[in-house]
């Protein structure tokens, strides 16, 4: 049973560029959440997708957007990159049916903005 997968593993961009990160949830999961983890910090919630809709959003600007596909996979897009966007981006999947269920995390994508 494949767990949560993310691609790419690492990414280097320059300020002002745009980036797309991808996530495939654990088998049987239908909800995807994205988190940003800056160096030395705990993960911060960006947003959550369920039924192809953004259901909840953290305190992140509109430059951060996402999408969920019918197969439950998800993308995170960041426009007009800033140096401060450099971080590890984590995707987590869970099951809506089991509301008390656990979020399972992928290995993350390390984004460096130069």
């Amino acid at each position, binding site marked *: 049973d494949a767990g949560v997968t993310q691609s790419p593993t690492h990414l280097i961009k320059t300020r002002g560029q745009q980036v797309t990160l991808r996530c495939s949830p654990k088998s049987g999961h239908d909800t995807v959440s994205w988190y940003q983890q800056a160096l030395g*910090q*705990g993960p911060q919630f960006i947003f*959550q997708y369920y039924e192809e809709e953004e259901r909840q959003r953290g305190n992140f600007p509109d430059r951060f957007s996402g999408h969920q596909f019918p197969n439950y996979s998800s993308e995170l897009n960041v426009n007009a990159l800033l140096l401060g966007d450099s971080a590890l981006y984590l995707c987590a999947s869970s099951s809506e049916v089991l509301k008390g269920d656990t979020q399972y995390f992928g290995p993350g994508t390390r984004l460096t903005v130069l």
Partner: protein
Amino acid sequence: AQSVTQPDIHITVSEGASLELRCNYSYGATPYLFWYVQSPGQGLQLLLKYFSGDTLVQGIKGFEAEFKRSQSSFNLRKPSVHWSDAAEYFCALRPMNTGFQKLVFGTGTRLLVSP
């Protein structure tokens, strides 16, 4: 607003010694509580979780945690630390009164294991 506090940024423990990592939370009711571990350059792995019932929760790798409502705490313990336990540990909560599954994390405690 919900928040999680991990008061210890770094902790060093000798191999074979016992470990306790502290976690305090702020929330109006009893939340779901989690401990995750993160090895360098890796994602988060779930160690254990508390939803309800027995306040002493057993997890993987010999870890356990005790929920204390009166102290708003959920401390992680291990009786004998192994060198492979060196990692970053995160406590997190998820509010119970919402269908959404957003997690609120603490800032983490880095565990160093000395020989």
